[in-house]
């Protein structure tokens, strides 16, 4: 992760309204989103007008991201191949057992890895000595990818639960805990979507993540006492002894590795998007205005009558 180019980490998000020193200073404020020109993806014009260029990914980071992505893809493909064709059907569950190669791996990512990483990142953001937007973005990326995995956990669990338990959903302790976690994750994401200063948003989100994490053990105890139906942990049981054997065990373990790699890859990509989003937030208006001016169009607001006058 630390390989990432982080040019905006320490950069103040404040936008300098004076892109062009000769332009009317009120132009930046009076421009509304609707007034902006339609998408103009040529970044070249922005480069010569003093707009900060979007942060570039370092070559090493790009290679790392691609290698992890490729490994995740290969790992998932191998898991699918082993799970569907190589491994035998279970004596009791038949072909249904094949879901087990994916479901625990996905659940491990959703419930432990993603949420744990988000919790640690949020605490590190709140801790004054380690405060950096790096942790904020990492927490946000982790939660967002975690939500995807959480939904996959619930869906794959439901597909398994219908033929096994006879219902799509049971109010079992672990299912309930997963669902509560999903809602807590979604609340975090909803809060992040509220427009705010990056600093304020980061702190607020970190607090929400911290409160949610403190709640997890309490929810865990309460739903455990409330109802338990789910089978005991197969792999992550105390002592880490496998209760299944042979090719099935290896496929299951490969599933864990593949899902973890997929999570890391998605996390890296989401982090990179987060960096670009922050750049966009800070520079969107400047870049748009610069593009408009480079077309030879005076920005709206400069002249009350003919807004399309040639500069």
């Amino acid at each position, binding site marked *: 992760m630390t390989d990432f180019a982080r040019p905006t980490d320490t950069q103040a998000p404040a936008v300098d309204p004076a892109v062009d020193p000769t332009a009317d200073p009120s132009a930046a404020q009076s421009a509304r989103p609707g007034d902006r020109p339609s998408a103009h993806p040529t970044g070249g014009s922005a480069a010569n007008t003093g707009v900060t260029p979007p942060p570039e990914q370092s070559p090493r980071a790009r290679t790392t991201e691609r290698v992890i992505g490729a490994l995740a893809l290969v790992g998932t493909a191998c898991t699918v191949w082993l799970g569907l064709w190589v491994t035998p059907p279970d004596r009791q569950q038949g072909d249904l057992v094949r879901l087990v190669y994916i479901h625990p791996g996905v659940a491990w990512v959703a419930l432990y890895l993603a949420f744990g990483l988000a919790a640690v990142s949020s605490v590190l953001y709140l801790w004054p000595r380690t405060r950096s937007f790096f942790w904020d973005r990492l927490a946000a990326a982790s939660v967002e990818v975690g939500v995807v995995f959480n939904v996959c956990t619930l869906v794959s669990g439901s597909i398994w639960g219908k033929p096994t338990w006879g219902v799509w959903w049971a109010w079992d302790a672990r299912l309930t805990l997963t669902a509560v976690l999903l809602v807590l994750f979604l609340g975090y994401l909803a809060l992040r979507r509220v427009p705010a200063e990056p600093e304020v948003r980061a702190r607020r989100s970190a607090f929400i993540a911290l409160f949610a994490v403190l709640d997890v053990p309490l929810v865990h105890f309460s739903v455990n*006492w409330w109802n338990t139906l789910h089978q005991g942990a197969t792999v992550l049981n105390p002592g880490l002894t496998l209760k299944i054997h042979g090719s099935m065990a290896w496929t299951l373990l490969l599933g864990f590795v593949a899902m973890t790699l997929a999570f890391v890859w998605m996390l890296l990509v989401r982090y990179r998007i987060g960096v670009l989003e922050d750049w966009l937030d800070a520079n969107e208006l400047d870049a748009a205005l610069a593009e408009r001016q480079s077309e030879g169009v005076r920005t709206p607001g400069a002249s009350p009558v003919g807004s399309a006058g040639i500069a």
Partner: protein
Amino acid sequence: MWRDAALVAGKDLRIEARSRVGLSQVAPFGIVALALFAFALGPDRAVMAQGAPGLFWVAVLFCTVLAVQRSVSVESADGARDGLRLSGIDPAGLFLGKSAAVAAQLIVLEALLAVGVVLLYGARIEVPWLIVVSCALGTVGLAATGTLYGALSSGLRVRETLLPFLLLPIVAPVLLAGTRIWQAAMAGGTPSDGTQWLRLLVLFDVVYVAVGVLLFGPILETA
């Protein structure tokens, strides 16, 4: 800290006593919620009595959201929040005071709702002290988490919609524990797991009150 807490709680309760929003809006809303639950479950009083513990706590949770919204909006007008911060009041005291004021209102509401549950649903309470203890413990947790989330969401324009979404899942353990203790109290005795639910409520209270006391200062700076 305690003196500040008493001052803030007194201020909030005085505002409530004069504006009567709690009495004229939140409490009637609680009664309406009880009536709606009754409509939803049908006229069979046995079913209603069975569901009474959960319905009581769900109504309490809804009222908590309203009480917290009210507690936040009191500070959001006329720069009252900045005034509070400028006044040099200890943030921990501010947290405890705001929580205490919310808790005091919730206790009154819970008494009212409990009477409503007994009268409207025909719930028979065999062990009243269990109800009293669980309500007291649950209220502390609800008020503490509500105040924390209220403060975090106070600067947001979307507060009204976001606060319930953030707060209600967090207080799920209170709902579960409170409901189970009520069921035990209605069944006429403490089952073996009754005390562990009480312990869970105590743990919930300790965690979130401690977090509020420790972190309310930084939280106030955030919003």
